[in-house]
C-alpha cells in the first residue's frame, strides 16, 4: 500500500527494538472481551485507477451547476471561482497543516487568518471577526448563546424569515439548555415587522436574517434600535454575504453580532459543506466570543508576527466554562474567502454584487411579463420569491427531468406559501439561461 512505507525488514528490526516478536503482540493489552469477534468486511482495496472510475460514476449521477441551469440559492449559491483562488488555497502547506499552535512554524496560516479576520470584519461592518465557525447555522446558534452569556437573560426571538434550517439548528443547540425561543412573524412585504417584537425586556437577543430566506432585505436598523432599547443584542444572520458589496453590512445597521454563511466567497457548494461560519462582533464583547482568534504581535527581534490569542476563552483551557466547545473549525475555507475578497477588491466586489442583483432583477421582470406574481414588495439581492400558477408544479417537475431546477418550492418550508418558489440568479447565469427559463413559463 503506497501510504504505508514500512518494508518487512524494517518491521522486523523495529519489533526487535521494541522487544516483541510479532506485530499482533503490540495489542496484547487489549482484553479478549474488547476484541472484534470477526474481521471487518469492507470492499476490496481499489487501485487508484479503479477508484477514479468508481468515483466518476457516482459523481456522474449528480447534476452540477456548471450547466448554469440550476436556479437554486436558499443558503448555498453558485458563483464563479477564479482559478487563482482555487490554486493558492490548494497549496499543500495550507491544506496539510493543522491549527497553528506553534506560531513560528505556522506564520502562513496565521497571517492568512489575520487577513481573513480583517476583511470579514470590514465586510460585515463590525470591529472583530473570529477565525471561523462550522457554518452559518451553527454560527447563529453560537451567537445566541453568546448573547445569553452577555445579558444573563434566557430567551431569544427569531424572525420566521430566518432560514428554517438555521432555526432548526438554533433549536437543537438551545433547547437542552432551557433557553426559550420566540418567533417573529413576517408580513406581506416579505419582511419581519419591528412592531411585532413587542416587549423585549426579557430577551437576550433578537435575530434577523437579511437578505432573509425569501430574498428580502429586512429593516435591520429598526430591530437593532428596539433591541438596544430593551437591553437585548441585535443578531444579524445571512446566507449570502456578497450582498454586502451592494447593501450595508449588518454592523453598519446596528447589529451587535453578525453571523452567517460565507460559502459564496469562493467556496464550492459541495452539496452543502464544508462552508464557512462567519462570526463578527463588537470589540467590547470579544471575551465572550466563541472560536479562535489570531492577533498581531512581535518576535524576539521586534519583527511583526501572528499568534493565536485570547485562548483562555476556549475549551482546551477553560473546559466546561469555555465560550464554545469548538476546536477544529473551517480555517481553510476562511483562507479561501479572504483570497476571494482580495481577488475581487473593493470595486470588483461592488461590480459583481451589482451584476448579481441585475441578473435577478432581469429574471424577475421576465417572469412578471409572463404573468408570474411577485408577492413580496421588499427589495432583494440575487434571489426572490415568485408566485406561480398551480400548473407550474408540473412544469417544475418536467424541467427537473431535463436537469433544470426552476427554483426551490417554499411550500416545503412554509405550508401557507403554496406555489411560491425561491429563485436565484447570479453571475453564472447567462442571459440566454434566464431567457430559456422565462420561456418555459406559461402563465
Amino acid at each position, binding site marked *: 500500500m503506497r501510504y504505508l512505507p514500512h518494508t518487512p525488514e524494517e518491521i522486523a528490526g523495529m519489533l526487535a527494538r521494541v522487544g516483541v516478536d510479532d506485530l499482533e503482540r503490540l495489542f496484547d493489552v487489549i482484553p479478549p472481551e474488547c476484541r472484534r469477534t470477526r474481521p471487518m468486511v469492507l470492499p476490496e482495496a481499489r487501485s487508484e485507477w479503479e477508484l477514479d472510475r468508481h468515483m466518476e460514476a457516482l459523481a456522474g449521477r449528480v447534476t452540477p451547476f456548471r450547466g448554469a441551469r440550476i436556479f437554486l440559492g436558499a443558503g448555498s449559491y453558485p458563483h464563479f471561482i477564479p482559478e487563482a483562488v482555487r490554486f493558492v488555497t490548494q497549496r499543500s502547506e495550507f491544506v496539510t497543516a493543522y491549527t497553528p499552535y506553534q506560531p513560528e512554524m505556522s506564520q502562513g496560516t496565521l497571517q492568512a487568518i489575520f487577513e481573513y479576520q480583517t476583511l470579514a470584519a470590514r465586510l460585515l461592518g463590525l470591529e472583530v471577526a473570529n477565525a471561523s465557525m462550522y457554518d452559518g447555522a451553527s454560527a447563529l446558534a453560537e451567537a445566541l448563546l453568546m448573547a445569553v452569556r452577555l445579558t444573563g437573560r434566557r430567551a431569544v426571538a427569531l424572525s420566521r424569515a430566518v432560514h428554517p434550517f438555521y432555526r432548526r439548528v438554533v433549536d437543537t443547540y438551545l433547547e437542552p439548555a432551557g433557553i426559550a425561543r420566540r418567533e417573529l412573524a413576517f408580513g406581506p412585504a416579505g419582511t419581519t415587522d419591528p412592531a411585532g417584537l413587542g416587549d423585549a425586556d426579557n430577551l437576550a437577543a433578537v435575530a434577523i436574517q437579511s437578505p432573509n430566506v425569501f430574498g428580502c432585505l429586512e429593516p435591520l436598523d429598526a430591530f437593532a434600535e428596539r433591541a438596544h432599547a430593551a437591553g437585548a443584542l441585535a443578531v444579524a444572520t445571512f446566507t449570502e454575504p456578497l450582498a454586502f458589496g451592494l447593501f450595508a453590512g449588518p454592523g453598519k445597521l446596528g447589529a451587535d453580532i453578525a453571523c452567517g454563511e460565507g460559502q459564496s466567497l469562493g467556496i464550492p457548494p459541495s452539496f452543502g459543506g464544508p462552508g464557512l461560519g462567519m462570526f463578527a462582533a463588537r470589540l467590547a464583547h470579544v*471575551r465572550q466570543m466563541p472560536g479562535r482568534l489570531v492577533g498581531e504581535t512581535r518576535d524576539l527581534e521586534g519583527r511583526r508576527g501572528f499568534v493565536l490569542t485570547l*485562548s*483562555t476563552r476556549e475549551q482546551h*483551557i*477553560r473546559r466546561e*466554562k469555555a465560550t464554545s466547545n469548538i476546536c477544529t473549525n473551517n480555517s481553510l475555507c476562511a483562507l479561501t474567502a479572504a483570497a476571494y475578497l482580495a481577488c475581487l477588491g473593493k470595486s470588483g466586489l461592488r461590480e459583481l454584487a451589482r451584476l448579481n442583483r441585475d441578473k435577478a432583477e432581469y429574471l424577475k421582470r421576465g417572469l412578471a411579463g409572463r404573468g408570474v406574481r411577485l408577492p413580496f414588495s421588499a427589495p432583494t439581492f440575487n434571489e426572490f420569491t415568485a408566485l406561480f400558477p398551480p400548473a407550474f408544479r408540473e412544469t417544475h417537475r418536467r424541467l427537473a427531468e431535463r436537469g433544470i431546477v426552476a427554483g426551490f418550492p417554499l411550500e416545503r418550508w412554509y405550508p401557507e406559501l403554496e406555489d411560491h418558489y425561491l429563485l436565484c440568479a447570479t453571475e453564472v447565469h447567462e442571459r440566454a439561461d434566464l431567457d430559456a427559463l422565462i420561456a418555459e413559463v406559461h402563465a
Partner: protein
Amino acid sequence: MKPLQELSFPEELRYVESHEWVRVENGVARIGITDYAQDQLGDVVFVELPAAGKTLARGAAFGSVESVKAVSELYMPLSGRVVEANPALDSSPELVNRSPYGEGWMIRVEPSDPAELAGLLSAAEYRERLKG
C-alpha cells in the same frame, strides 16, 4: 517559578488558602492575590472583576485572572459588598505581577461580618500552608 524563600508575604496583611490577601483600612477591606499566586500564574494578561455594588459571600468567586494559557478564579476572603474594582487593571493587568500588594490590588469590599477577619491567616501561617 521562584522558590518560596524569594517570595514576599507582608506581615501586616491577612491571607486565605486560595491565595488572596486582605488589608483593612478604615473599615474597608482591600483584596488582591499573593506574590505566590502571581508567580504561579506567570504573566497576567487579563483580570475580570465585579461591578461595584455587588454583594458576595465569603468563598464566592468574585472574578478571574488570566495568563496566556491559564485561568484562575478569584475567591472572596470575606463576605461583603464590593465598593470599588481597581480600574487600572483593565489596561495594565501586568500590575498584578509587578506589584501584587500595591498597585495590583483587585477590589475594595465593605465587610458584612467583621468577625470573619479573625479566621484569616497570618503571613507566617500562610507561608506554612504553602510549604505543606
